[in-house]
């Protein structure tokens, strides 16, 4: 069968499945709409959380980033999984015991303050909206690459699909669809990896293959990769850090705290039946996430080796990497390269005019590589490779059958759609429950609130679609912002609300604002005020990464520390929280007496 037809069939089948689930799981009450009735078993909730969490970025971009960064890329692996330990121990069980629908509701009740709740709503909406832009563009990209339609059409189709199961099914529809989406995306990710691992190392399990010897030799795959990339002037794969060690340290911590503070992730733990389930549910979520996250480094290293092997025959055959005949002739390049050149993700420029492809690091500080490449008459790197190719073109690089390629298309779409739906849920529940019911129309009926929830969901989808179609210039920097906000404002406020009985509203509000302000200040200094080009103010803070060489993406942990310190100091000089709040904190700490989640105040 034609590749294109196979892709249509596989993607069409998965969409039909999602819609069937949507029809089955319609939400009839606010409890079903916001928290799926609070009755999702932990294993299934874990699977839905995993799909919710793993976005287009995890599925499409992460392995490519790791391939480029080598060891330093581990900060994404550790940062985006280690946060679940924090969630399971510090937040999830207590928020489940608290038993309400949204994160701002917890902050508002715990700090007996509408202002605190408003600050939380603001943080939640900013973090979720910026995050969703990336998902919508991801949907567009996946559609245009695989289905041959324009990116805009792709976003419309994606919006329509999400609309069907999110608006009618609410959290219930979203949760059960996410379970299906998880299964699709995990197959799509692991199947090509198994084939490739088998091919390179003879071991079908990628996690073991990465630590094995190359087929027919006693050199380990990583040692081989290290040697090839170092010879070609790149940094050694297994040891190159991401900036300084301090930056890697802080970056990892920021991603962890940010993960634990992202509202669309926290919200998942309101849907399990008991406090006990909330604890183990985080573990199940992490198991399902780990299947992809431990495969990713194998995909990264193996695809990198494959890519070098494709353009330089000496990589697999041995011999001199710099010999003339080692670099393949452009006309002999494989078909998949020609296909991806059309998308612009792969680009060949024959700088020295010899008709052969030289792929190496021309900016290297390695004098030996520099001398050898100059002696061979190489005039600069001739192949530009977009990081996304590592996953998207992986099955083609390894010459796998068409159905595997189709599966990857369906998997990419599942990853983007499931995360978009989770974010939309966080946005709409916050608007309908925290803003409409909490502030503007407190005596709204349940039916009215359910309708308000559905309308805000529909509006959120349109807004997200609009932002996806017209991505603001800052789209690339936004995920860093979402994590920064979650880490510097939401996480510390929730954590202190549980672990300190005496933390009062003045402290919490001051802390959230201080954390938010310092983080935005540092990010905007690098990327422009509200990401408007030309408004960067680096000289004011003393140049790029001036705070101990920490990059703006890694700054969330510093923001969190500022939040904690400010809250502590302000708390010391203002009045204690009222007696009943302190009792409430005590009650939240013990599981006994947990009730089904309800939104009632």
């Amino acid at each position, binding site marked *: 069968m034609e590749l294109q037809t196979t892709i249509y069939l596989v993607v069409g089948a998965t969409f039909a499945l999602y819609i069937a689930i949507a029809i089955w799981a319609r939400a009839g009450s606010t409890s079903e709409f916001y928290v799926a009735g609070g009755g999702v078993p932990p294993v299934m909730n874990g699977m839905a959380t995993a799909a919710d969490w793993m976005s287009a970025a995890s599925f499409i971009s992460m392995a490519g980033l*790791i391939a480029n960064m080598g*060891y330093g*890329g*581990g*900060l994404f*692996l*550790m940062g985006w*999984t*280690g946060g*679940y*330990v924090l969630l*399971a*121990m*510090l937040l999830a*069980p207590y928020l489940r015991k608290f038993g309400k629908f949204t994160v701002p509701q917890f902050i508002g009740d715990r700090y007996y303050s509408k202002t605190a709740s408003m600050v939380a709503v603001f943080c939640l909406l900013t973090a979720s909206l910026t995050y969703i832009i990336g998902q919508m563009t991801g949907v567009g990209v996946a559609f245009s690459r695989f289905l041959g339609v324009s990116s805009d059409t792709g976003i419309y189709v994606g919006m329509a699909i999400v609309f069907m199961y999110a608006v009618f099914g609410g959290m219930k529809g979203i949760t059960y669809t996410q379970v299906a989406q998880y299964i699709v995306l995990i197959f799509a990710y692991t199947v090509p990896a198994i084939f490739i691992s088998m091919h390179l190392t003879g071991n079908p399990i990628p*996690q*073991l293959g*990465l*630590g*094995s*010897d190359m087929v027919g030799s006693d050199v*380990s*795959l*990583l*040692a081989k990769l290290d040697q090839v990339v170092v010879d070609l002037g790149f940094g050694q794969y*297994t*040891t190159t850090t991401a900036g300084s*060690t301090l930056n*890697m*340290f802080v970056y*990892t*911590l920021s991603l*962890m705290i940010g993960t634990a503070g992202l509202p669309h992730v926290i919200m998942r733990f309101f849907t399990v039946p*008991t*406090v*006990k389930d909330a*604890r*183990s549910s*985080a*573990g199940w979520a*992490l*198991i399902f996430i*780990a299947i992809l*996250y*431990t495969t990713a*480094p194998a995909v990264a290293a193996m695809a990198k080796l494959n890519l070098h092997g494709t353009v330089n025959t000496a990589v697999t055959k041995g011999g001199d990497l710099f010999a003339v005949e080692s670099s393949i002739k452009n006309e002999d390049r494989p078909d998949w390269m020609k296909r991806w050149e059309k998308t612009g993700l792969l680009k060949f420029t024959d700088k020295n005019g010899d008709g052969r492809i030289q792929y190496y690091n021309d900016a290297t500080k390695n004098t030996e590589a520099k001398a050898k490449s100059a002696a061979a008459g190489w005039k600069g790197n001739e192949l530009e490779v977009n990081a996304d190719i590592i996953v998207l073109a992986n099955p083609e690089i390894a010459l796998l059958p068409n159905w595997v390629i189709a599966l990857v298309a369906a998997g990419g779409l599942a990853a983007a759609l499931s995360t978009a739906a989770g974010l939309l849920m966080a946005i709409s529940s916050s608007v309908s429950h925290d803003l409409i019911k909490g502030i503007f129309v407190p005596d709204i009926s349940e039916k009215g609130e359910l309708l308000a929830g559905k309308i805000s969901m529909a509006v959120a989808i349109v807004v997200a679609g609009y932002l996806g179609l017209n991505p603001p210039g800052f789209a690339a920097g936004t995920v860093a912002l979402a994590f920064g906000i979650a880490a510097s404002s939401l996480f510390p406020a929730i954590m202190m609300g549980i672990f300190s009985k005496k933390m009062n509203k003045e402290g919490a509000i001051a802390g959230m604002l201080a954390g938010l302000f310092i983080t935005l200040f540092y990010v905007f200094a690098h990327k422009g005020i509200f990401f408007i080009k030309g408004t960067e103010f680096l000289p004011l803070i003393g140049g790029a990464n001036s705070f101990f060489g920490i990059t703006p993406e890694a700054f969330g942990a510093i923001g969190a520390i500022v939040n904690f310190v400010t809250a502590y100091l302000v708390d010391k000089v203002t009045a204690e929280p009222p007696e009943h709040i302190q009792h409430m904190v*005590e009650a939240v*700490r*013990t*599981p*006994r*007496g*947990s009730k089904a989640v309800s939104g009632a105040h």
Partner: protein
Amino acid sequence: MEDSGKAYWSATLRLLYGIMAVWTFVTFGAGILFVDFFNKIHLGGYPLGFWFAHQGTIYIYIALIFIYAKKMNEIDRRFDVHED
């Protein structure tokens, strides 16, 4: 009840500190700060420090969460604050 509440909370915190200590050590110790030292040891074809950063920590996180969940259930029962 007041005393047992306090004892329950301090048992919870002790468990928390223990888990956090392991979490911190594997991530920031083995995975980042002392990675060069661990890289001298090999696990199959993996340098150990690299393995921690790209594989091992994730497995350990999973184990930590389930150990935490199990121990917390025991603590809940010991202080008679478990659900149902």
